[in-house]
């Protein structure tokens, strides 16, 4: 028997707000918080700015912060977002004796998460200090000395990508199915999609799903810079992320965590918790094309979108809103537009398709789940979040991108799509619960 999968809680820590409602207001107002990078000195990098989570105090969200104090940025966002989501879903946290009557072995976690930052000072000093540039080789003895004196066991452990999941499990006492994945920029959507499948098939009653990530560290910013994927609009960071415009020049790096609590309808009804929306479809595919480029005809994205529609048992005519991947890179925005046109055929210009990455930036592993939250809120409030900085349309891209201003619209069914480097594509369909 298949269970219907509903959303009963959401939590969000992102650059434009440290909770769901304040972030949503900022997203609707198109109020970004982009500025010069402060997490490390990026003043000479090709891209000097980013979308950071600022003035964030995780101990405001949980009492047991001392147990999580060594967390990397991603994990600290994750525990705060998970705590928010659990409060909404009436799941007890930080207790060995929960009163919520939830079977902890049927309460699972599925996160899309990335690495925590290395101790950069020690890391780079170890390289600079141990490299023998005369002989072009590493003095490993010296490297090991610097590294073992500088690195700590705690920070080494916390870099592992399963650690946000570990912290959430500890916070909630969850003993159910537990997964973490990192399909690059598609991880958050994949985590929610796969978690929904686990609930649908009875492997868990409740799944804490979503993503948490911060790549605002020297290796991350360097890596994306070298790929020329980041916007270099250093003279105007506020308008750097401008998806689907003619002058788009790359994405805006962000960070954060977005948690969505998925629950079987049976369990949600039994517990009498408020149902926020329903997940009705999930599709996944691989481009199988090139490591560096998306398939020219958008083969993979089309396949994932069609798989999600088929999984939901609906047609493209039923989609009222598309939450795009919309990174503001030249390639993504044109291939994505192509994919939407192929799937939606003569109706392609009808469903509004916006990108909140224009406002909050690209949360990498957390991007997809943050954007799923925006779909749930669009359904709830009957209002679409805008694509901001949309002032010079790319003539080749002619969908309705909800330019610059939020728009009132009844949304019953929304599609969230995410595409990862290397060609991993994931799509989730969210519907108003009725």
């Amino acid at each position, binding site marked *: 028997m298949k269970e219907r999968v509903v959303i009963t809680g959401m939590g969000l820590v992102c650059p434009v707000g440290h909770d769901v409602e304040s972030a949503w207001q900022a997203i609707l107002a198109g109020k970004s918080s982009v500025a010069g990078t402060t997490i*490390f*000195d990026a*003043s*000479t*990098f*090709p891209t000097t700015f980013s979308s950071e989570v600022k003035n964030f105090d995780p101990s405001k969200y949980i009492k047991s912060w001392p*147990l999580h104090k060594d967390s990397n940025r991603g994990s600290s966002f994750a525990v705060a977002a998970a705590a928010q989501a659990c409060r909404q879903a009436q799941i007890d946290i930080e207790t060995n004796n929960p009163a919520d009557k939830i079977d902890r072995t049927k309460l699972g*976690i599925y996160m899309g998460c990335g690495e925590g930052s290395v101790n950069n*000072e020690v890391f780079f*000093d170890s*390289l*600079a*200090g141990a490299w023998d540039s005369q002989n*072009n080789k*590493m003095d490993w*003895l010296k*490297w*090991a*000395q610097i*590294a*073992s004196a500088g*690195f700590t*066991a705690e920070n080494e*452990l916390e870099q*592992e*990508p*399963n*650690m946000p999941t*570990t912290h959430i499990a*500890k916070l909630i006492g969850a*003993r*159910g199915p*537990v*997964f*973490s*994945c*990192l*399909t*690059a920029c598609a991880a958050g959507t994949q985590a929610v999609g*796969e978690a929904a499948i686990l609930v649908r*098939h009875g*492997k868990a009653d409740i799944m804490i799903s979503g993503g948490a990530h911060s790549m605002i560290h*020297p290796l991350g910013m*360097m*890596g994306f810079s*070298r*790929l020329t994927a980041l916007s270099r609009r250093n003279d105007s960071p506020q308008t750097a992320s401008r998806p689907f415009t003619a002058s788009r020049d790359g994405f805006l790096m962000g960070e954060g965590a977005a948690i969505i609590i998925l629950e079987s309808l049976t369990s949600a009804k039994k517990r009498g918790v408020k149902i926020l929306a329903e997940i009705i479809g999930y*599709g996944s*595919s*691989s*481009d*199988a094309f*090139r*490591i560096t480029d998306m398939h020219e005809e958008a*083969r993979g994205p089309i*396949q994932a979108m069609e*798989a999600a529609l088929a999984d939901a048992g609906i047609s493209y005519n039923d989609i009222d809103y598309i939450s795009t991947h919309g990174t503001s890179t030249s390639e993504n925005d044109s291939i994505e537009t192509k994919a939407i046109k192929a799937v939606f055929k003569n109706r392609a210009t009808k469903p509004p398709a916006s990108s909140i990455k224009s406002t909050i930036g690209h949360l990498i592993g957390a991007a997809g789940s943050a954007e799923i939250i925006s779909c749930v809120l669009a359904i709830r409030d009957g209002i679409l979040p805008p694509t901001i900085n949309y002032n010079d349309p790319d003539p080749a891209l002619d969908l309705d991108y909800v330019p610059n201003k939020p728009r009132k619209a009844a949304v019953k069914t929304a599609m969230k799509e995410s595409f990862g480097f*290397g*060609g*991993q594509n994931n799509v989730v369909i969210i519907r108003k619960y009725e």
Partner: protein
Amino acid sequence: MSDKPVITGFGAVSCLGQNVSSMWQGLCEGRCGIVPITAFDPAGFPCKIAGQVADFNVTKFIPKTYRKYVKIMSRDIELAVGAAYEAFISSGLITKAIDPTKININPTRVGLNVGAGMISCDLVELAPSASASKTGNRFDIRKWGKEGLELVPPLWLLKYLPNMPSCHISIIHDIQGPGNSITCAEVSSHLAISEAALTITRGKCDIVLAGGTDVKVNPMCLIRQCLLKRATTEYADNPEKACRPFDSNAKGSVFGEAAGIVVLESPESARKRGTRIYAELAGTGQSSNLNSAYQCLEPDGKGITVAIQKALAEAGIGPQQLDLIIPHGLGIAADDLAEAKGIEAALGTAVKNIPVWPTKSMLSNNGAAAGGLDCIAACMAITDGVIPAAKNCDKKASGCNLNITMQPQKKNINYVLICGYTFGGQTAAVILKKIN
């Protein structure tokens, strides 16, 4: 007839050899692949040994036209590409890379779920740029931002994203179905195999290659495990004796590099192709340890217990029906004892009679690849009706009530339980069943 997915092939690259048969032969002979580290000079590290793969050359496993991409492959990717190639061949699947004139798969009906660890960057590749960015003796990030970045290869990041093993395999073999990359440390393979099974039973594809790849023979990984005091600092002169799961003299784990990938297939597809079936994926389970010292198991191993109970329930069997247990068994005394307690709590009195065969004394701890290798070993044990002897468990640690296999034995094996856990707390169990 059950509709549970079956295993129809596999591929392994490990310190015991570059294919499944050499790994299995090594395990049966009690050979150990742990050696003094040669990948870099380990003199400054407290642990100087590892399970290394010797003389691996990825070009044997890719078409000539793909050779230009080798420069953007980390070793984790290379080993995965090698294991996937063998997996396709062993299952009789002909892909674009194997013979473009005889392709017998439908690319959209084949999926990939290859787990990975945190792929550590090649320090030698980065060091020149850091070294060129010094002010005085110290690294100067402003200098690096301005001048050093240009010295890093443009596609640098793409070598180290953990979804790249999957992506390269998908491109090389033209695999277009559902794809995922589980990054859950040492249970990545177990989870990938569990998720792939559900992808198949949901009807989203007929075949999924699932497993994992990991290279822990890397200065960054090794220093981490040394700082966490998980790597053994002893037996540097006698590496064969170093990894001692459940032994009273266990002093820590030994890390390695490997890839292990199985071909999971719907029974209908396997029957239609008339291909050999090695085992059925009878049940899986996952859970978490909840310990405040994150890198250690709870002393009672409760997360392990819950995962095993779930897998047994899904398999629809009782503990007494298990014929073999392949534990995670790292050679870290406290964790081994906790795992033993967790297994015992799940199986009750049946635990006394079920042979337990740890593999890491020979294969080392291969992180995200560990579960893939153990599932393959389980398939071979089922196929040959053989349980090899455990190695280095000369005197069982006190408090461990597991029935460690001291002698090789012939046995009809119907059900095998494979366990895993991470440093961080996630646990997983997989049960494989013989198909008669």
